[in-house]
């Protein structure tokens, strides 16, 4: 029975994620040791590489931006009781929408191009999520299956566009032409420079702030608006939703479209902020890792931001470790990331029962 009891806020939101993370690092450490390297040195390099100097922090937050968008995307669908595995595909199609928007308006009015790109990214991501949502709401096709399939379709679509209609004239790579001049999102270090603060160059740009705004917006929507209330009712109990006069199928479609729009916005950071062109597979699995980010962040905006920064640090710090320790290849970095996803995402409840047991034993003893 003890396992069924609720843990206090701090244990649920801080202790458990910390334990999961610790477990991931312990296993990683053992593997690194087995590879013949010093795990403590690797860890210190990782932290140093992620937070040790200005450029590192910039990179960490740059990666974190992608994770915030995709984590929020998974999370809002989850609150409506939907498991959106399609963040990856929605981000790809969002990137196409962004590119079309930028090219449609950017050549004449760069600022308008940027706005059109943002709207295009959200709109196309939403449309890509709409189809599986509609299929589930009206035809009963399970959204987990359809969103996975739509990732493959999106990938193929993107590849086709990049070697076909959107291909850079004369280019050798599956990528589009460069975005029109003046459409890039402003870098944070440039912004700081304008305020008289000098900061080393790095790819972090204002889409990080847009991501924070989205996180705040999602929190406001879910817990401060009537729509968010109805969305959460649908997620928790279809029976209660019908009782309350809320259409489950309509909410399924709307929640998925918001989710798709958030995933689509990932392109802001990656394309409009850094690459300035559309390229094949620019999503690099961020859409999938968003699932782990959402769960590790307990599906709360602040938690998602923190989890996203953690994953950003792993990406950035991991790259540094791979650079500094010759034995420690890029694959080892992926392994560490994988272990964190495994422990924090897939097995996030691993320590829940023992901890709640311990906690209640302790509480009972204190009461006795």
């Amino acid at each position, binding site marked *: 029975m003890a396992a069924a009891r*609720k843990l206090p806020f701090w244990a649920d939101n801080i202790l458990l994620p910390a334990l999961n993370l610790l477990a991931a690092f312990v296993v990683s450490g053992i593997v690194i040791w087995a590879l013949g390297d010093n795990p403590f040195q690797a860890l210190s390099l990782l932290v140093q590489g992620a937070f040790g100097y200005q450029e590192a922090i910039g990179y960490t937050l740059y990666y974190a931006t992608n994770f915030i968008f995709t984590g929020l995307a998974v999370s809002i669908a989850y609150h409506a009781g939907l498991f959106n595995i399609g963040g990856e595909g929605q981000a790809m199609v969002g990137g196409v929408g962004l590119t079309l928007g930028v090219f449609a308006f950017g050549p004449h009015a760069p600022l308008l191009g940027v706005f059109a790109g943002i709207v295009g990214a959200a709109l196309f991501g939403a449309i890509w999520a709409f189809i599986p949502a509609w299929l589930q709401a009206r035809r009963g096709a399970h959204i987990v299956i359809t969103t996975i399939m739509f990732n493959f379709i999106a990938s193929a679509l993107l590849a086709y566009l990049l070697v076909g209609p959107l291909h850079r004239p004369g280019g050798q790579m599956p990528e589009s032409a460069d975005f029109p001049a003046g459409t890039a999102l402003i870098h944070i270090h440039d912004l700081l420079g304008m305020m008289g603060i000098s900061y080393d160059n790095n790819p972090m740009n204002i889409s990080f702030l847009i991501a924070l705004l989205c996180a705040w917006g999602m929190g406001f929507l879910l817990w*401060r608006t*009537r729509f968010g209330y109805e969305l*959460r*009712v649908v997620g*928790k109990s279809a029976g*209660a939703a019908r009782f309350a*006069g809320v259409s489950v199928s309509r909410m399924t479609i709307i929640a998925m479209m918001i989710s798709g729009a958030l995933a689509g916005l990932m392109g802001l950071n990656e394309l409009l902020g850094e690459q300035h062109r559309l390229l094949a597979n620019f999503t690099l699995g961020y859409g999938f890792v968003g699932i782990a980010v959402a769960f590790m962040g307990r599906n709360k905006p602040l938690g998602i931001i923190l989890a996203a920064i953690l994953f950003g640090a792993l990406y950035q710090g991991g790259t540094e470790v791979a650079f500094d320790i010759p034995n420690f290849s890029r694959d080892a970095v992926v392994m560490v990331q994988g272990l964190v996803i495994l422990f924090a995402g897939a097995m996030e409840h691993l320590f829940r029962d023992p901890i709640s047991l311990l906690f209640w034993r302790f509480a009972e003893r204190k009461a006795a």
Partner: protein
Amino acid sequence: MSNPEFAIETRALTKRFGDVVANDSVCLKVRAGTVHGIVGENGAGKSTLLKMLFGFYQPDEGEVVVDRTAHTFADPSAAMKTGIGMVHQHFMLVEPFTVLDNIILGAEGSAKLEDARATARGALAALERQFGFNLPLDTVVEELPVGVKQRVEILKALYRGAEILVLDEPTAVLTPQESEQLFALVRQLRAEGKTVLFVTHKLHEIMAVTDDVTVMRAGKIVAERKTAETSTGELAELMVGAKVAREKTREAHGERVIRLSLKNVSANNDQGVRALKAVSLDVHDGEVLGVAGVAGNGQTELMEVITGLRQVAAGSVEFDNVVIASPDVATNPITLRRMGMAHVAEDRLKTGVVESFSAEDNAMLGYQREPDFSHRGILKLKALAETAKRYFESQDVRPRNPKLAISSFSGGNQQKLVIAREIARDPQLMIIGQPTRGVDIGAVTKIHDQITELRNAGKALLVVSADLDELLAISDRIAVMCEGELVGIVAVEDADEKTLGLMMAGEKRRAS
């Protein structure tokens, strides 16, 4: 097997879930070689008893005696070893496997499947001859009709050497014709010396097929009868409970305004089966119309068509002379609430509240679009907190903390909050399902008083309840349902448990 008098016997079997006693020292005696019926309402403790007999649950106290030996089954396979075979209400078959493979599953007895199949074929042929089965052993189970699947389950149990067959609500999924075939098979099993435990809440089945019958109510055995010496009327009365002298504190109402009117309403259940058949009834201002019936006879669907949760297939529902439901009309529950209809949902935790939400968040469920709770789509959290606090005080909900999850309140306190929410807007019509189900005794009287107060204030109320005593205590008229039809409506002055019991069993009709 030696030949004891009782094939199976339980000694003071008790099972508790938290504070709820699901089985309270149950002493069941099943004579060997008979068909023994167990009847009782939903929640009477039948399932819990069966689960202990078959090792799914372990009793807190008491023991199961099979073949003169006391057992405490750790799991179903232990029960099976003593010769108990169970046919579950929901079949435990692997749909894409053939009948033969399903039967030998877990009892292959050989590593090589072909050998196991060959051995089984021989044994099954003998069994089939003995009991008069004729099953297509090589057909895939999912292609078979429900009645045949059930026979596969029975043969599976016999193949495992079952001497005692437990059938849990076996006719729930069958057509009347399939039921007849099942009864014939049950008689055949008895003729061949098997013991059958037949669990149902349908009284005519008990009369049709059993030798003895045990009646359960509220976790206890309340009566044991020889089937030949009892009647459906007596059994119905035993099932629903003891009589309580009631005092009438009612004021007569002269005016008879029809507030709600159902005209030949039919509707299907979720499986697409007609569950409500041409029901016509009126509810007047200043009256409580009780709806009685054994659970699952259309009462749920009746409430759902009125409250906008289920599409009407034929007929119409009128509220204040406006058609709110018909084959072409569906009205959103929000609109119905604004028209002055309130709904206390029958299944509180699945429908009436969101279990994981706080009491406060639940205080606006269904009313979230009213201007008190939101303005231009933004929630008024302060107003909500104040409203919840008011509800808590007016109904004395405890503990007095609206921020707690609704699931941490007792059933009675949950129901008090739900009632506070539903009467807050002074509705003219209230549809109330199981007003006191899962509610602690203390709150029951208060809820009954409240229903009477509303009635005296001139409101129209329709109350569905599985508890006859409750309906007799609070209703002005009682409508009885059986198999989706309205059997009749009786004034409470003319009603007693016996008449109602007979009507619930579908035996007696009375014009409204």
